[in-house]
């Protein structure tokens, strides 16, 4: 029997070729273009995560005491382990970026409007599931950052009214980090959430086929309910093109490009290096989540503490309600981005906000420089014993953890390199004693002499003094 005969027999008994062919060639509106590729690319990234994740799971040990070592083995010794972990790591980033781009595109072109409201709602569900994959995935790295991610996640959840404590106990699987914590997060990451995502994708794709790919928006064609459906049918009947290959070639080209980029990053940079082992009693110096959650982590540092208690659960809740209510509240009207300034405003505000927070999160100026180096004599540059003692106190009493002098020290508080030009003795003494905006009151830790020494040191930090030391 020839191959052809086999194929014909299979087709005769299953009819799959016809069905798939028909699905692939379903008519889509003309002119969809390059803005319509992000959804399929997100799907491609998900498939990449499924394959690389399944491969990694053949070696990863989801036990709290062994996971770290097994991951080290995968990254350093197992054949192709570094590459596959790298693909999975950058694939996760790609999926987060692509799903966000897809959502922004659908939002800006008003494609969520009638009759595609449920397309959008199922997409919001998939977005939430993708974020929970990102969260559980970084926990599975099970190093210091992984461990503290669960703790910080549980602490955030605990702030929610009524259900908070339950949620927190659920995330930790109890009261503390322990054996169950990692096992259950593993099950969520590899079975439960992916299962839900596959179901969600099936629903999403079914809806895309049923309601059709949205036509590129036109200023003169706002959405009319229910006339929209008939207009769409007429458009497809007169000017529709088959999805494959007329539109799909762009999906393939873009998806392949993303895949190559992920593979290149995996080869060049490799996966994220493991931090210290997952021992919660180790003093992590700077635990922080991966970039896609870092902006939110930074938000927790910059919100006013009193507001934070409420915003910490109200913001995500409000975002969820907004996203789900959006198509239900605004199912008709203009779709063209040029006529939707509010949509642009929202997107740009969101993007700028996330970018600023991300930048702040990367700098983490609030992280105390706990092992700041002592100020060298050349910078103190004084023979005055008061100034010299003050310089020693400046580091010893923790000032340097948050304040910078001539490039030494932390970033939380103002830079004090030239503070002598700005503040007088009395101001300096008062601020040190009473503290202030995010600064502890140091009055209780310093006796009168020490305070004078510190003031003398800070007083000596002037431009004139700086110029003098530079000249030496």
């Amino acid at each position, binding site marked *: 029997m020839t191959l052809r005969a086999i194929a014909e027999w299979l087709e005769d008994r299953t009819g799959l070729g016809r069905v798939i062919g028909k699905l692939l060639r379903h008519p889509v509106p003309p002119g969809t273009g390059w803005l319509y590729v992000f959804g399929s690319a997100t799907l491609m990234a998900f498939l990449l995560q499924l394959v690389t994740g399944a491969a990694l799971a053949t070696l990863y040990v989801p036990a709290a005491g062994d996971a770290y070592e097994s991951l080290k083995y995968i990254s350093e010794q197992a054949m192709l382990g570094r590459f596959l972990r790298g693909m999975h790591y950058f694939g996760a980033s790609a999926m987060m970026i692509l799903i966000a781009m897809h959502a922004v595109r659908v939002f800006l072109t008003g494609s969520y409007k009638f009759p595609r409201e449920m397309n959008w709602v199922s997409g919001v569900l998939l977005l939430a599931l993708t974020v929970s994959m990102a969260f559980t995935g970084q926990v599975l790295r099970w190093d210091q950052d992984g461990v503290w991610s669960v703790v910080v996640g549980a602490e955030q959840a605990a702030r929610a009214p009524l259900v908070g404590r339950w949620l927190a106990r659920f995330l930790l699987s109890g*009261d503390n980090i322990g054996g169950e914590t990692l096992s259950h997060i593993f099950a969520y990451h590899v079975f439960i959430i992916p299962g839900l995502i596959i179901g969600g994708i099936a629903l999403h794709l079914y809806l895309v086929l049923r309601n059709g790919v949205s036509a590129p928006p036109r200023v003169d064609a706002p959405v009319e309910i229910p006339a929209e459906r008939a207009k769409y049918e007429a458009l497809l009947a007169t000017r529709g093109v088959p999805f494959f290959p007329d539109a799909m070639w762009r999906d393939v080209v873009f998806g392949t490009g993303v895949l190559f980029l992920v593979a290149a990053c995996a080869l060049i940079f490799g996966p994220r290096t493991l931090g210290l082992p997952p021992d919660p009693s180790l003093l*992590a110096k700077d635990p922080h989540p991966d970039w896609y959650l870092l902006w939110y982590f930074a938000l927790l540092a910059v919100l006013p503490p009193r507001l934070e208690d409420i915003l910490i659960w109200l913001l995500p809740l409000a975002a969820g309600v907004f996203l789900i209510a959006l198509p239900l509240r605004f199912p008709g009207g203009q779709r063209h981005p040029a006529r939707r300034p509010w949509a642009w405003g929202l997107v740009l505000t969101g993007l700028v906000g996330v970018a600023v927070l991300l930048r702040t999160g990367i700098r983490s100026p609030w992280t105390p420089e706990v092992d700041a180096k002592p100020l060298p004599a050349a910078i103190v540059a004084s023979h005055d014993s008061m100034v010299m003692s003050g310089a020693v106190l400046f580091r010893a009493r923790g000032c340097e953890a948050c304040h910078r002098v001539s490039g030494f020290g932390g970033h939380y508080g103002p830079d004090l390199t030239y503070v002598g030009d700005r503040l007088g003795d009395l101001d300096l003494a008062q601020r040190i004693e009473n503290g202030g905006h995010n600064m502890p009151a140091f009055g209780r830790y310093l006796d009168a002499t020490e305070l004078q020494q510190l003031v003398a040191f800070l007083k000596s930090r002037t431009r004139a003094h700086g110029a003098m030391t530079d000249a030496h």
Partner: protein
Amino acid sequence: MTAPKPAPPALPRRGFLTRLSLGLSAIAAAVVALPAAAFVLRGMFRRVPQQWRDLAPLAQFTIGDTVQIRFESAHADEWARESAHAGAWLRRVDADHFVAFSMHCTHMGCPVRWQAEASLFMCPCHGGVFHSDGSVAAGPPLRPLVRYPVRIRADRVEIGTAPIPMG
């Protein structure tokens, strides 16, 4: 050969069969899903009795010093190893009094670090600072550091395990 039976009145029978199918399916689904769901969510209901953990002989602690201690939390499952460790800052106040602070910042639970010369606890995550008595000195935390129970038994210092302080 038997003659075909006359068709029974369809509707009541169909109604019964519909209810039977739906009802049985629901029961079958519940038999599988309920225990599975309860098992998956068990962390919420898990109550682990807190324990006393032996630390070191009393003589090892200098009065006035604040030192980091490490012990097993109450969730010390066999396979958890170092990930079930818990940490605290222990200070010997006088001959027979100790105070132990949880190392979890009351803001987001990150590990605070005792800066002995500055007499402050500092948190790396969002810049929370606490005084030596555990009260808030600066930054986003609103509540003081949580204290763990400490006791002296037969000249050895013991610490009581506790949940990670939440909200």
